[in-house]
């Protein structure tokens, strides 16, 4: 049975806090990607709300004690969303926010794909797709054996679900009834070289997870209340939980939204300024 979440309840914050955090994550991400001339801004913007809700309202963590044994484990399996991951860790207090300003530079610790080396709060290095759900399943199994009450969450991309290993992990987690495991899929419908529908269609996607015997919630991945509710529902069945979070690639910057280009393109100065203005103007 799922570990009780009563101890996490006091951490719940008003809804506008996670929304404000998500906005800051988007702004950090834009600056990081712009300064370092790197890619994957669209992937970071699509997952920002998911990370904000997880870190603000769900994960039981101690930023001043990153190795705390009973902590929840988050594996961001879509390691190319590194800028957003580092931003949320800095905002959550795992390391100073000014570290973000050197993202991608020589000699600092923040790489273009998530690394745990010298970055407190990162559980697992990712960047090769299809690894994270298995590791999270191992975390969930260990927590159960240790009766630590910890939960494990894996954030996956949609394109990542092309990997067979994801479905190996899906079989495994359900077989072992890992009710303390949650997979959140950032379903932004665009993968590396085209739309998911065109490259390797996943639909009926939620049905696939159901058929693998997961408890499935299909929600708007930018709706913080819906994210909170789906996460809160996790663990009440003898099954792992899959949250299919429908998102928009590049969410929050109108000219980046739903465009493959922004999987790769780094914004020009004009584009950066326009994007920041739009995000800062947003509620």
């Amino acid at each position, binding site marked *: 049975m799922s570990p009780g979440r009563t101890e996490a309840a006091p951490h719940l914050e008003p809804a506008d806090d996670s929304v404000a955090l998500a906005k800051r994550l988007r702004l950090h991400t834009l600056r990081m990607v712009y300064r370092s001339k790197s890619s994957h801004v669209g992937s970071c913007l699509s997952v920002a709300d998911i990370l904000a809700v997880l870190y603000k309202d769900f994960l039981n963590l101690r930023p001043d004690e990153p190795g705390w*044994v009973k902590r929840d*484990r988050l594996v961001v399996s879509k390691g190319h969303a590194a800028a957003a991951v580092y931003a949320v860790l800095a905002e959550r207090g795992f390391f100073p926010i000014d570290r973000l300003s050197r993202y991608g530079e020589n000699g600092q610790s923040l790489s273009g794909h998530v690394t*745990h080396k010298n970055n407190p709060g990162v*559980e*697992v*290095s990712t*960047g*090769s797709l*299809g*690894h*994270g*759900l*298995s*590791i*999270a*399943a*191992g*975390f*969930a*199994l*260990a*927590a159960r*054996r*240790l009766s630590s009450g910890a939960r*494990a969450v894996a954030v996956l991309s949609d394109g990542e679900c092309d990997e*067979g*290993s994801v479905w*190996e*992990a899906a*079989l*495994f987690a359900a*077989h072992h009834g890992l009710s303390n495991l949650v997979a959140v899929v950032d379903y932004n419908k665009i993968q590396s070289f085209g739309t998911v529908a065109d490259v390797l269609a996943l639909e009926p996607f939620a049905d696939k997870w159901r058929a693998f015997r997961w408890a499935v919630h299909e929600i708007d991945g930018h709706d913080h209340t819906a994210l909170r509710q789906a996460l809160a529902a996790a663990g009440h069945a003898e099954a792992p939980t899959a949250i299919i979070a429908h998102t928009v690639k590049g969410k929050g910057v109108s000219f980046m939204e739903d465009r493959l280009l922004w999987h790769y393109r780094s914004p020009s100065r004009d584009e950066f300024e326009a994007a920041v203005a739009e995000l800062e103007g947003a509620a």
Partner: protein
Amino acid sequence: MRNAFISALLQAAEADDRVWLINGDLGYSVLEPFAERFPERYLNAGVAEQNMIGVAAGLALSGFKPFVYSIANFPTQRCLEQIRVDVCYHAAPVTVVAVGGGFAYGSHGYTHHAIEDLAVMRALPGLRVAAPADPVETAACVHAFVRDPGPSYLRLGRGGEPVLHAAPLRESPGRPIRLREGDAVALIGTGSILGEVLAAAELLAQTGIAARVLSLPYLKPFDAPALLDAFAGVRLVATVEEHSLIGGLRDLVAPLLAARRDRPPLIGYGVRDGASMDVILDQVAMRRHCGIDAAGLAAGIRTALERLDAGADPFDADGDRA
């Protein structure tokens, strides 16, 4: 050897409650004692090696010491990237165990021949690599990996390998173990092929050639000065492995010798790149096919020494042995 493995692991698990055993739906009639004794630390992960390694990494990063067991190439090459990233990059204390090193599965065919595993595993940073030769070395490796946990690879034979060591091992991991003294040639082997190496030394002795025999169960890390010391005074060094000549024991020894001013010549015996795999043979015959059985080794060494006596290079420099 697999029974020695499970006995040692049971012993280790009694003393250390962090030891787990995970398998990829293989190990029938071998692993049951562990499953019965420690059901909470035993897992059959199914025929899904990538997930198996990832799960083991998650367990290891939570404080456990999983041993992950399967046949030949399945727990290594099928899930190589999970070992590289999830295990090695995180320094996760997972031991990958492959049963059936070399041609142990013989006539089961090419899919079950593990003859590139040492090359691939040696290339992974931070991964310790061991290929014990007999049940005694196997137990020593298991205990060493539990005592000093870290990413590790353990290559076993199959079953029925004879005991080659008279007593439990005292050597530290990484040092060569001397099994026979001799000054004409040093034969060094890794893994269960050591039995053929000892038999070859016996054949050579019958024709008056004194062969020193060394076993190197740990290919990584290894003690380079101790290895060079072990070759002192011989006219010829021969490495013997049931593995491709690329990336295994020969390629471990060669750069050590190449950097020395006064050094004996080196011959590598193993599976030549491009050796015909169009044959269905048991392990004994497969070794003969590749020239790494006792008779083949003895004949090759004899010829090499004769050529040295005649002032020639020990073997034709036509890449034949490469």
